[in-house]
């Protein structure tokens, strides 16, 4: 700075010195504080990751010993009797999930398609309703399943369970479907229409294939969610110690079995519970990771 600008430069220089003084003296405190705070964040990350590892390790360690041929092929037996398994629970879970998927997926996807293509008041309300539905406590869904099916047909049944699970899956599929269908670029639609195709053809030939990755991911996630639900089943299928393929009768399911056996004082039953927990956890984790990998892979292929 030249001497000519003595008078006006002075307040600026003074301020500069004051700022630099404050900056230098506070530096240590600020840096320390930053290190500390960021260290806490790292600690939080650790806290978040540990339970996952702990749960998986425990379930594997305690559940794997229960896995033998009998486990997968024999139905449950009362405590003290050897050779029990969870085949009835596996069958029940599979049958119920399949029925739920077969009903919920078409309805959900078509509804998602509807929402992706409409913008009126009805669509907005419906979208909001679907969102709200995802927040309904699962026990209340179970109550509804009880009222709707068990009450009306006077019997606990696999159908009631499938109804409840399907109800839980439905909004997830609707939402995923709408997002996937909306992701189809307008230009594709318009190009097809300009070529003279009808809307239905456009939907079938253009929209659905393009949205397929998102749809598949959404469905897999919904299935993973449905598999993990226990409360609705507790109120609708009642449980069954025998192998049962008929969904109009009472059935057993893996989550129910785990729930019931957890608090039993008999070690062999608890062992079965761990084995079932491992099975359920593995399937759900595989579905979750698989859907994510699939989404990444298909997303890359698209490019």
């Amino acid at each position: 700075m030249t001497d000519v600008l003595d008078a006006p430069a002075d307040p600026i220089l003074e301020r500069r010195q004051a700022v630099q003084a404050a900056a230098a003296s506070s530096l240590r405190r600020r840096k320390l504080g930053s290190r500390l705070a960021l260290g806490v964040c790292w600690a939080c990350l650790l806290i978040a990751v540990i339970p996952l590892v702990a749960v998986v390790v425990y379930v594997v360690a305690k559940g794997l010993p229960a896995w033998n041929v009998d486990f997968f092929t024999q139905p449950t037996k009362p405590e003290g009797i050897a050779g029990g398994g969870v085949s009835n629970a596996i069958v029940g879970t599979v049958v119920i999930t399949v029925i739920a998927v077969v009903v919920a997926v078409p309805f959900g996807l078509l509804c998602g398609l509807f929402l992706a293509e409409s913008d009126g008041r009805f669509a907005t309300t419906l979208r909001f309703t679907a969102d709200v539905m995802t927040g309904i406590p699962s026990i209340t869904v179970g109550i509804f399943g009880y009222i709707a099916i068990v009450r009306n047909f006077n019997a606990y049944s696999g159908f009631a369970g499938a109804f409840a699970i399907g109800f839980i899956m439905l909004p997830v599929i609707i939402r995923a479907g709408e997002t996937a269908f909306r992701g189809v670029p307008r230009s594709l639609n318009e190009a097809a229409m300009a070529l003279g195709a009808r809307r239905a053809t456009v939907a079938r030939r253009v929209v659905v294939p393009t949205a397929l990755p998102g749809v598949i991911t959404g469905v897999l996630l919904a299935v993973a969610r449905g598999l993990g639900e226990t409360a609705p089943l507790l109120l609708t299928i009642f449980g069954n110690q025998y192998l049962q393929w008929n969904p109009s009768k009472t059935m057993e399911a893996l989550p129910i079995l785990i729930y019931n056996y957890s608090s039993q004082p008999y070690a062999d039953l608890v062992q079965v519970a761990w084995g079932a927990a491992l099975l359920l956890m593995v399937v759900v984790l595989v579905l979750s990771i698989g859907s994510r990998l699939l989404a990444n892979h298909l997303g890359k292929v698209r490019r």
Partner: protein
Amino acid sequence: MTDAGFIPNVEESLTVHAEKAMIDPPTGQVVMTLRDVAVAFAGRTAVRDVTFDVCAGEVTALIGPSGSGKTTLLRALNRMHDAERSAVVTGTIRLGDLDVYGPDTDATLLRSRVGMVFQRPNPFPTMSIYDNAVAGLRFNGVRKKALLDDAAESALIAAALWDSVKDRLKANGGTLSGGEQQRLCIARALAVEPEVLLMDEPTSALDPIATKRIEELVGELKDRVTIVIVTHNMQQAMRVSDRCAFLLMGEDKAGGLIEFGPTSRLFSEPSDPRTLDYVNGRFG
């Protein structure tokens, strides 16, 4: 490290580097020196062979076509590349007698001496105009209300914003127009009273009228802070700067310094034919 804290004899060291680029020796007091500065990302050089001095009270412009590394070079001056893990800065940059990339130099402290204004105005949206203006001061540990108020007023006046905001200092920073937001960002940088102000294409996101106001501002501010400005607009460089550094991408895809000197000379009788081509608009 030099003795007595003086900058090494500038003219001498510059002649050593002169064969790499056409550089005019500086006049007046030097505020920042750059010697053989290069920046590379993950092994790939983005800009290299940069040697010049920044003189106090002047506006130094970094000009050149896009891809020539102007912004990369600018951001090396206040260590903004520290946040990028793959970035490596070589060469020497000095602010006064401070080695900018020295092991004992703290980047946050450096940035209180070398401020920056960005291409797109970025006032903090959750803060009021006043809070925006004093944000830098608060970050640096300044608490005294008197000092904050003083600095805010002075900076807002210098940014030609005081009259329009003095009655609504508590209003949210986002309520200003684009040009006003940029001036608020300038005020925010000025409030910390830095020695150097780096400006990265500060008008490219603004309309012509706002651009003109900011260019006027740059002229008014250079007594208060030394300014280094990146611009892709030659006319702007001609209008606002005292000295220019012309950078150009070489065959190795890295930008390099071609010529450095007073703006008037660079634009009328440049030494290097490439500079001549650029200022005559033969490539952009």
